[in-house]
C-alpha cells in the first residue's frame, strides 16, 4: 500500500506491506539512527517523534504514520548538538547504541519541560534503557547542559 507522510520535514511517498513496522520503513529510508533493540516496546532505542510526540517506532505500523510528520535524529542534529556534548563529557555515551533513543527522548522532554528537575528527567527517561551505564552519567550531562543555559 502507498503511504504519504512527512519525514524530517520532507514530504515522501512510500510503499509498505500492511505488517511493515515504522522502524523498518524508516531504516529503509536511510534513517539508521533508529535502532532495533528489545522488540518488546521496553528499551526506547527506536524512539522517534510523531507529530512532535515521542513514540516507539518498533510498535507502530508504518501505515499508521500516513498523514503524519515523523522526525528522527537525522532531522534534529542541530537541536541535539546543543546538549549531546555535555553527555559525552560525562562519558555517558559509552557504547553508543542507546544514544539516539536517549537523545530523541531528551529533545521531547526539553520541548515539553524546558527546566526539569532531576526527578522529572529520571521519570521522563525511564523508558530508555542503557546496558553500559548506571544512568547517572546521562543525568549529569543533561543537568550540566541545563545549568549552563542559566549562566
Amino acid at each position, binding site marked *: 500500500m502507498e503511504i504519504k507522510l512527512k519525514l524530517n520535514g520532507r514530504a515522501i511517498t512510500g510503499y509498505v506491506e500492511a505488517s511493515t513496522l515504522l522502524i523498518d520503513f524508516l531504516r529503509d529510508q536511510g534513517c539508521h539512527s533508529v535502532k532495533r533493540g528489545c522488540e518488546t516496546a*521496553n528499551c*526506547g532505542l527506536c524512539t522517534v517523534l510523531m507529530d512532535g*510526540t515521542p513514540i516507539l517506532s518498533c510498535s507502530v505500523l508504518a501505515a499508521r504514520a500516513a498523514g503524519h510528520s515523523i522526525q528522527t535524529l537525522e532531522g534534529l542534529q542541530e537541536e541535539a548538538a546543543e546538549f549531546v556534548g555535555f553527555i559525552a563529557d560525562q562519558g555517558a555515551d559509552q557504547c553508543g547504541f542507546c544514544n539516539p533513543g536517549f537523545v530523541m527522548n531528551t529533545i521531547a522532554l526539553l520541548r515539553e519541560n524546558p527546566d526539569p528537575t532531576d526527578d522529572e528527567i529520571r521519570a521522563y527517561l*525511564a*523508558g530508555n534503557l542503557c546496558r553500559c551505564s548506571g544512568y547517572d552519567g546521562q543525568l549529569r550531562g543533561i543537568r550540566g547542559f541545563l545549568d549552563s543555559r542559566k549562566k
Partner: protein
Amino acid sequence: MMNIQSYVRPRSLEEAYALNQNRRSRIIGGMLWLKMGRGTVSTAIDLCDLGLNTIEQSEDEFSIGAMVTLRQLELHPDLNAYTQGALAQSVKDIVGVQFRNLATAGGSIWGRFGFSDVLTQFLAMDTWVELYKGGVLPLEQFARQKPDSDILVRLIVKKTPGVFRYQSMRNQRTDFPVLTCAVSRLDGQYRAVIGARPHRAVIVRDEEGLLSGGISDSSARAFADYAARTVATGSNLRAGADYRTHLVRVLTRRGILELGGTDHGN
C-alpha cells in the same frame, strides 16, 4: 510478530464493526500487546480516524475516547484533580513516556489484562463502558465478560464525589506490577480494587461494615485482613501467592489509612 494481511482505517464505527465480525480481524489500539502475538490477522482495523482520542467532560461525567493514550490520562488536569492524582499515579510506571504515548485507554480496558494498572484504577472509580452495539454498562460487569466482536467506544467516569489512592508493588520500576491496589471512598462507600493477583482485578467492598465507624489504625487493619482473606491470589515468575496475599494486606491498609486523612472528612 503477527502477520497482518490488510490495514484499514474505517470512516465510521459501523464500518469498523462490520469488519470486526470476521474472526481473524483485530481492532488495533496502541498495538503494544497485540504485536507480541503470533499468527495471522486478516484485517487490522485502526480506529485512529474516528475522533476517539479526546477527553471531554460535562458537569456530571468525563467521557474518555477509546483511543485516548495513557499519557493523556496522566496529564489531564481535571481527571487528576478529580482523582487527587491517583490516575496519574496508576500509569506513571508503565514502561516509559514513549510507550504511554501509544498505549490506549480502550486497549488497556478491552484487554482486561491481569497485570493492568489501568483496569485497577478505573474500577476504583464510578466507571462505565460504552460499547458500539452493547450499549453502556458498568466497568465491573464488563471486566467479568469475555472479549467478543463488539467495539469499545469510550469510558464514562461519573463525577461521583470521592477520594482515591493508588499503589502498586513492582520488582523493578517500569516492569509489570506484582500487585496493584486502588482504594476509594465513593459517596461514602469504601472499596479496594486488587489487580495483578496475577489475575484480573476485583473489587472488595466493605460488606461487613468494618469501616462504618470511620478510619482508624484498627479498622483499616481489619478491612485489610478482610481483603487478604477474600481476594484469591496466584503465583507466577514475579511473585508467589503467599507474598501477594501479604501485599494485599499491606497495600490495602496503607491506602485506607491515606484515605483517612483529616483533609477528607474523616
